[in-house]
Structures are given as C-alpha cells and as structure tokens.
C-alpha cells in the first residue's frame, strides 16, 4: 500500500506498469548497459557465464517486482538479448 501526503485524485485510474524480464543469455556480451541504465536498478551481473564466458544480467534477488516495463533495457541492448513484457498484477 502506497502512502501519499496528498492522495492524487486519479490514483484509481493510473497504474504503474509491471514487467517481466526475458533474457537470451547466449547472446549477451556482458556490456552492462542494461544493468547501468535500468531506472529501477533491477538488474545485476550474474555469477555464472554463458558459453562465451560473458556474465549475463539477472534480476536482483528481492527486486522481482520492481520492473516497470519501461523497456529501456530492450532499447539500449546492442545484442537483442533482453526485453520485457507487461504483466497484469
């Protein structure tokens, strides 16, 4: 439940989107642009690597609900390796 000093009058109508992160680990080259530019800091480098030795991104434990489907990771990824889809909550 979110608490506001003054409740916005359209709080029932406007909802913050929620997103599910999808990753294609074999395409990732570990450039970390998605990690760096995510406005909600949802991502971090994995410990494991893909077949080429790159650390692909993973959702930080505890941040599973934080993705707001802004799609910035998708538009900034040079590798076509990450995207999000909207989820209903």
């Amino acid at each position, binding site marked *: 439940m979110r608490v506001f000093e003054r409740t916005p009058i359209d709080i029932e109508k406007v909802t913050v989107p929620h997103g599910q992160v*999808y*990753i*294609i680990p074999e395409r990732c080259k570990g450039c970390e642009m998605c990690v760096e530019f995510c406005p909600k800091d949802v991502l971090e480098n994995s410990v494991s690597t893909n077949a080429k030795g790159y650390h692909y991104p*993973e959702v930080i434990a505890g941040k599973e609900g934080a993705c707001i489907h802004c799609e910035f990771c998708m*538009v900034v990824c*040079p*590798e*076509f390796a990450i995207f999000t889809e909207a989820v209903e909550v």
Partner: protein
Amino acid sequence: MAEAVFVEKHPLDEIIRGYRMPHIWCPGCGIGIAMRAFATAVLESGIPEEKHVVVSGIGCTGRVAGYMDLDSYHSTHGRPIPLATGLKLANPELAVTVFSGDGDLAAIGGNHLIHAARRNIDLKVICVNNFNYGMTGGQVGPTTPVEARGTTAPYGNPELPFNLPYLLAASGANFVSRWTTIHIHEMKKDMLYMFKKPGFTFIEILSPCPIGFGKSNNIEDGLQEMELYREHCQFVKEGEFVFEDLDIDLTKDKPIYVGRFVDRDNPAFEPIREVPA
C-alpha cells in the same frame, strides 16, 4: 513478476535475421543499438517490408545489411550510395536505406556522399560514426578527432576531422541530424521521419567502439563511452547553433551538439523519365 526468464527468441527476430545471432560486433559496440532502432522503425514505417532495401558498405556497420531480414546488398567499400542510387532509379517504389560507417561513407565513399546529397536523391542514409576504422583494427579515419590515437596514428591524429552535418548541409541534403547511441528515442524518431521525408536524408549516429577507438583513447568500455556522450552532449535546435559549432574536438572543453540540424523541403531528385513536351 519473477526472476528473469531465459528464452531463445527476441520479439524482433522476424525482422532481423535472428538465426544469425549473436552478431559479430564487440561487447559494448553501439552498432547493435542503432540497428535495433532501425529494425523497429522499419516495422512501424507503414512501408511494406518487401519494399524496404538496405544497402551497406564495408566495415563493422556495413554488416548490418546481413543481419536485417530484408532485401539487402553488401557492396564494395565506399560504394553503397551509388549502388543504392541505381536501385532507387530503376525501381522508385523501393524504400532504400544506406546503413554504413564513417570511413566507408566519408573517406572512400566521400565523393558519392556529397554528390548524392547534391542531387538530393531520395535515399535514407544512416551513418554510424565511431571515429575510426573498427573492422580493420582501429585505424584513424576522416572523422577521428584531432590528437586522438589510432593504430595508424600512434603519436596522435595530426588531421582535423570532417564536420559531417556541416558537409551534408552544404552539399544540399534535405535532412541532417546527429544523435548518439544513447539517444535511443530520438534516433528512432528521426529514422521514422526519414522514411516519410523525400530527398536525401542523413542521420549521423555517434557510437562507442571500445576495441577500435576506446582502447587507444583511454575509454575503458562501451558503457563508459555512453556515459561520456551523456555528459558531453547538448541538444540544439534551429537558431541555437552555427554549423561550425558542430565539429567534434575532444581536446577542447566543448559540448558535442546533437539534434536536427537541417530540415528543408527542396525537391527530391527526379531523373528525366520522358521527353519534355
């Protein structure tokens, strides 16, 4: 909402040749970002996919033609623009995009670049400028900033680079803009605009090249070069700049100006297709 789900296909795999991924570009290279913007622009352009043609030259950016799932022509070094000219004149219904790099378009291809702009022929040109010849290992090129280093300029580049927007504006292009790979939305917006704009349209996209340019110039990786763009870039609109300002000089403390620099409506080139009355 859960942890990341691992999949094998990307939503854009139909318009790019998803079966050829991962592509050959280095970690941190910005060409993939420009290509992604172009792929979505093609899908949203309202022009049927079979009418889109991509022509590219030699170099890392030139490989884009092979990764787009459209009719594509990967020509010789410097010659995508005249090849695209032939395609467009022979079949005016085609939407022809030239997608190539700074060396390919402005050095060996320089003559064709200025003549196509002079003619104002209906070609959409996307020039990814990473300030060097990346594919061949990081040699300097016509857009390498002065005193920057490259494998053929180990003591620093003694030459001044092209100011591409100034060059294209003077040559007669109808539309000239510059963005960097961090300007995701503006880049794609201009690509969509280009598809609707007749005449010669040119977008310069500054891009990180961590192995070719960054390594010789103390830029650690692609991410750091993106941060540099974020720090140094400044939007300008018509009336807020003169073309001389648009040169890029890393030795001086001046911003890198981005934005739409030329947007005019001169008639696009039309060959004489029937004997005038």
